[in-house]
């Protein structure tokens, strides 16, 4: 919202204004699963800006030469919290990880999304049966509940969430496109600031109030970026 304005307008022009200033050491949630829902241009701008010692929370650890992979290549990442870092193109993650240059916290995918949801929902910690009795339970508090072993898992929060959505209005209400929704609605809740890149801006009231997935309450800045691929 621009200073002094009486109305709400979260749209900004350009990816630099959208990203804002990111401090060294920031914790950043990055939406997307595989190549679906990745906020590519916001990640490119993050690389351009140069913040270092980042902690990233994301499903994957990047592949190829852009996005999270480029941040790893340029040694901007101190730690990644993710579920599935390995892929055919996760070359830069593997190189940095094997050299001991990036810390990895591996989290089961459902536990990862639930920890993010807990961070957004004001739940400090929760008990889940996932991973009980496995290596990933090492060091975690356990508890027998309903006759079954559960692990205590803590909420995840972040300084910034970078997400992609299909369309937004000036209040920051968001709707998504098919499976690109994935982590975005949950990460939007769990970060102090949430920035969304969208394919389309629509007028206030044009989104069906029954179908808004992310209320603008969770969104701080929106930037429209024309996408090259046909949708």
């Amino acid at each position, binding site marked *: *919202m621009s200073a002094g*304005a*009486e*109305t*709400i307008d979260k749209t900004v022009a350009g990816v630099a204004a959208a990203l804002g200033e990111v401090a060294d050491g920031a914790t950043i949630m990055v939406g997307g699963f595989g190549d679906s829902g990745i906020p590519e241009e916001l990640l490119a701008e993050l690389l351009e800006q140069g913040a270092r010692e980042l902690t990233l929370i994301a499903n994957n650890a990047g592949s190829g030469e852009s996005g999270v992979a480029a941040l790893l290549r340029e040694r901007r990442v101190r730690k990644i919290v993710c579920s599935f870092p390995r892929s055919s193109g996760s070359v830069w993650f593997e190189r940095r990880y094997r050299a001991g240059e990036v810390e990895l916290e591996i989290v089961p995918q459902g536990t990862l999304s639930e920890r993010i*949801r807990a*961070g*957004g*929902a*004001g*739940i400090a910690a929760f008990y889940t049966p996932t991973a009980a009795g496995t290596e990933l339970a090492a060091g975690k508090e356990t508890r027998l509940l309903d006759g079954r072993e559960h692990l205590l898992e803590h909420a995840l929060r972040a300084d910034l969430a970078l997400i992609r959505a299909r369309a937004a*209005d*000036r*209040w920051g*209400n968001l709707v998504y496109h098919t499976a690109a929704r994935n982590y975005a609605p949950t990460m939007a*809740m*769990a970060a*102090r*600031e949430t920035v969304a890149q969208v394919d389309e801006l629509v007028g*206030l*009231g044009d*989104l069906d*109030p*029954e179908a*808004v997935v992310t*209320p*603008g*309450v*969770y969104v*701080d800045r929106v930037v429209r970026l024309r996408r090259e691929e046909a949708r």
Partner: protein
Amino acid sequence: MVTEVAARSREEIAARVAADLAPGAVVNLGIGMPTLVAGHVPAGREVVFQSENGVVGTRPLEPGEHPDPDLINAGKEPIGLVAGGSYLSHADSFAMIRGGHVDVTVMGAFEVSAAGDLANWSSGTDAIPAVGGAMDLAAGAATVVTMMSHLTGAGAPKLVERCSLPLTAAGVVGRVYTDLAVLAVEGGEFVALELVPGLTFERLAAATAAALRDGRDRVPALLGERRR
């Protein structure tokens, strides 16, 4: 004791609260007097009213507007939805509240203590207990504001050193709007920011059963400037 001062009516207290709501603030209005606040937002200012039963962007019905029987606020009164509003489930709505995404909650109160303790859910009698969303809102909202008469019907102060009634939450109230004054709750004391015309600080202090500091040199900050 405070009979000749220009005490604010319920609508006037509501208008006073509304004047302090920051543009863009996400605000939950409690049942009763707080719902009046929605009708007093300065023209042109966009404030997002959240109702805990799953509505973001509530508005009062227009005169003569046909009510949708399903579209009600937490006080079960018919409401409308603004452009930009949306619906969500109860669980998602309270995730928003508990997660600190509601900037301001405006609630009534039986008592507020100098430590910011809030008592507004139980009158301590044998009435059937009913808590609703009060504890979630008090624990979750970034800023907790109460609006109330300064004294009970029996003339007892509602601003106290220590609450005698069951707490809704401890140490949460940041601002109090009464028929007599606007007060901050800071560092274990009440701070008078603004008095209604005709009221002296001494008389406000006498109507307040806790330490009261004079802060009339300060302009009350707007409530709910987005900081998430």
